[in-house]
């Protein structure tokens, strides 16, 4: 986390024009704190209090300084008695704005509170991780105090980020057409409300399991999470019950290479039902049981196993209806997932389930872990008490959720590039996303380029000019940021070379393609005075390099266009 530009007791000053602000009310801030990300209005699955998000569904309005009074008033006008604005300051280096539509205010002379400090708003599309939050600004001591006093067991503490910054708000007002402009922003392909709910539930399952298995490899659970939407199999070294893989990765796994067994099928059916069961709306555990039974109908289970499952379901129903007293399970008999399902249905609360003594359940760790994953799926991560989501683990889970949600949408697409256009809105200059042109045109505009915002943020002591009247060449960095690496081999080759030059990790995967089906011998050899692992094969091998574009862009954003290695490479490999 970086220091806020508005540290407490700081000399009153105007913020840097490079700051980005998410403006909302304190009610919605609680959702941000518990989810540990900032999402569009579609991410608010529980409660939502009107702010700018609802004006442009799927996008997140991000303001630049100065913030005008009408902007901060807007987010709390639904209930001025109890609602108050909060301003979440974001690290601009972590927000990729290159293709983002932007609206700059144009103010008349008498409205210009500070010369050239006109401000504006980006209609950003995506999900912002909490790690991008630099500070959370309240506009008075009173509002900070009121907020801090109201703590909850599932609400992470972010006291260290809280600031009181009345100076953040400038006199005057923003452009009256701002709201129309936001409403006119075309919908983008962003994660849907269902995507947010699904990821919250999966991350709930993962986190509760990880928190329970500290002695195992917590990280492995989180790594698994990242692969779920792609339906890829996790690493085989992951030490989770094997049915987790079938349930979460139905296309990528079968036990011992054969067809999935009953445990795996049952787990998949439970996961499928719990993903769509709304626990807030219904607490009918018998309905969950019936839905799972229905779900299993389509799985082609052998008739004798189906009969056995029917018997198990009948017994579960009798336990839930208190027609029969529950007896601890006998070890090594029955289906483990069925046992977990029963425990979960009898104790669908995480505290109560995990406090159930082993001697009373007869359940081993794998069964209890599976039952815990069901509870996590049912309630979701955001509603789990912090007891089940230690900070580091929860942060990691949230970051992974953001990454996964990012892959579900096209907002990170590189097939569009920013081209300035005249705004249809009177009195404002709009810069909108347009289909890419093979060779980005030279842009001459009264425009602050997103790539400049992404350069080194400098704390401002005095107001900075927010506009540049210059001819901006299309730099190699800009081209790399806007490239479509699935189409442009030249730029991809350049990007790979740059990764090599910079020594960036995580950007490139090498695939060694061997001729024929000869044995491959791996051995340690000495190469250029270094011991390295080598593969010895007959004939010529081919190496194919794959670029991890999102990771590359992430690192590229941090790179100065004046970096000597970039300039050197540009000279060596002219494009």
């Amino acid at each position, binding site marked *: 986390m970086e220091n806020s530009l508005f540290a407490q007791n700081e000399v009153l000053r105007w913020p840097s024009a490079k700051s980005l602000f998410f403006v909302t009310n304190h009610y919605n801030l609680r959702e941000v704190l518990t989810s540990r990300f900032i999402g569009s209005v579609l991410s608010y699955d529980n*409660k939502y*209090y009107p702010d700018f998000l609802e004006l442009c569904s799927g996008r997140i309005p991000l303001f630049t300084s100065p913030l005008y009074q009408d902007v901060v008033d807007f987010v709390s006008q639904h209930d001025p008695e*109890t609602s108050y604005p909060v301003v979440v300051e974001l690290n601009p280096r972590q927000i990729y704005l290159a293709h983002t539509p932007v609206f700059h205010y144009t103010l008349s002379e008498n409205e210009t509170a500070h010369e050239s400090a006109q401000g504006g708003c980006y209609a950003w599309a995506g999900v912002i991780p909490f790690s991008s939050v630099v500070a959370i600004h309240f506009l008075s001591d009173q509002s900070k105090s009121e907020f801090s006093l*109201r703590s*909850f067991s*599932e609400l992470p503490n972010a006291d260290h980020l809280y600031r009181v910054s009345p100076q953040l708000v400038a006199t005057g007002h923003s452009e009256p057409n701002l709201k129309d402009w936001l409403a006119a922003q075309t919908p983008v392909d962003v994660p849907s409300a269902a995507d947010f709910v699904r990821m919250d539930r999966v991350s709930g399952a993962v986190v509760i399991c990880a928190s329970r298995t500290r002695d195992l490899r917590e990280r492995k659970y989180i790594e698994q999470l990242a692969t779920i939407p792609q339906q890829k199999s996790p690493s085989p070294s992951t030490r989770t019950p094997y049915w987790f893989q079938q349930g979460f990765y139905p296309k990528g796994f079968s036990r011992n290479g054969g067809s999935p067994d009953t445990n795996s099928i049952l787990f998949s059916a439970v996961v499928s039902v719990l993903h769509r069961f709304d626990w807030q709306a*219904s*607490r009918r555990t018998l309905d969950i049981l019936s839905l799972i039974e229905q779900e299993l109908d389509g799985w082609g289970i052998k008739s004798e196993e189906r009969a056995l499952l029917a018997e198990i379901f009948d017994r579960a129903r009798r336990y839930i209806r208190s027609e029969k007293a529950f007896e601890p399970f006998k070890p090594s008999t029955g289906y483990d997932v069925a046992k977990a399902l029963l425990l979960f249905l009898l*104790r669908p609360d995480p505290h109560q389930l995990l406090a159930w003594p082993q001697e009373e359940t007869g359940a081993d760790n794998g069964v209890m872990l599976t039952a815990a994953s069901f509870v996590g799926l049912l309630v979701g991560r*955001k509603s789990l008490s912090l007891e089940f989501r230690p900070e580091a683990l929860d942060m990691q889970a949230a970051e992974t959720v953001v990454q996964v949600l990012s892959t579900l949408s096209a907002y990170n697409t590189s097939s569009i590039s920013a081209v300035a256009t005249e705004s249809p809105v009177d009195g404002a200059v709009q810069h909108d996303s347009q289909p890419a042109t093979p060779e980005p045109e030279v842009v001459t505009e009264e425009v602050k380029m997103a790539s400049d915002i992404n350069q080194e943020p400098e704390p401002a002591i005095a107001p900075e000019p927010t506009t540049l009247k210059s001819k901006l060449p299309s730099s190699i960095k800009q081209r790399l940021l806007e490239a479509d690496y699935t189409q442009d081999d030249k730029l991809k080759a350049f990007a790979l070379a740059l990764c090599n030059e910079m020594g960036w990790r995580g950007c490139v995967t090498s695939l060694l393609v061997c001729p024929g089906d000869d044995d491959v011998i791996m051995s340690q050899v000495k190469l250029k005075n270094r011991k390295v692992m080598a593969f010895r094969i007959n004939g010529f091998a081919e190496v194919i390099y794959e670029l991890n574009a999102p990771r590359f862009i992430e690192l590229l954003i941090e790179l100065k266009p004046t970096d000597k290695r970039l300039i050197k490479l540009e000279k060596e490999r002219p494009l």
Partner: protein
Amino acid sequence: MRLPNFRDLSIEQDKIYNLPLTTNYLVTGPPGTGKTVIALYRASMYAKLKKKPILLALSKLLTSYTNGAARELSIAGSILTYHSWVFTTYRDKFKVNPPEIDRFMYDWSQMTPKLIMASTADNAKPCLLIDEGQDLPPDFYTAVSFMADQLTVFADENQRITSTQSTFADIRSRGNIKNEHKLTRNYRNSKEIAEVAAYFYAGLPTGKPDLPDRRGNLPVIKQTPNLDAAIEFITTFEKNNAHLQIGIFSKGHALQGLIQKKLAAVSTKNPVQAYQSGKDDMPNFDSPGIKLVQFQSAKGLEFDAVFIPEINQLQLDLESLDTKMMFYVLLSRAREHLFITYSGSDKPKLLNLFPEELVEWRK
């Protein structure tokens, strides 16, 4: 008593929960709308501000009922009964017992001027929160408007027991309260339980909360051969749901004693606790397990599961509004599970008052 987390609070509860701490408020709402929970949270906020919160409840049973939640919020010593607080405060200030016009009826005409005079020099006035505020006399509010640093009153006019108690207008004018907020929706019960309870509601329309959205199991009416069979059913439920708080309501000492004796003879996962009005032994309402409570003490309590056994033994005037309201109170104590049992082959007439399609009939 269970404290909800912030995602559990509804939008209308959120608003009350977020009311500024620097203003006096009257919060009104029918039973089950969350008044007591918000009162507890608000008291905890005053405590965090290093102010002195005092939350007044009407009875020892209700203070005991809220104690667990109060401990969780670190305000355990701040929950007092109205009588004990008035008695102690008066005695501390004037070194004599407060004057009474009858047993447990203070003479406010004598007390109020003295308390107001004394409060002018008081530098450590408490932030007073009053639950079931309709049950306290109007003169009390005149006094506390001077004695309290901040005043928040939670009340339901429809639950006012006698005319000597306060209307909302009394509370506003005497307590110097200018701001009023309403809670309207039931959050305690599942929709199915609330629907059945609503059949027995006999008060003013404004006293009935809006139905909750949360679905649950249908309330169960179970016929058993005898009381022993009902006890067996209850203990099976308790064993399978040993994490739940279970209330068994009965009318009168005799049936309560019999049930207690029979439960003692069979095994339960958790100890069985009984409450009898007038006795100092208070059940631990925060622990799971069975609590035996008589009908007249059930008001203000809530349980995950409620059993009303042996209703065939009740002698009731089914035409009486009091009977209906008593059942409204009893049924609406259940959050998720509600069971009514009767023994014998004849269906008690009381059961004809239950809507056929809204309950599950079991044998």
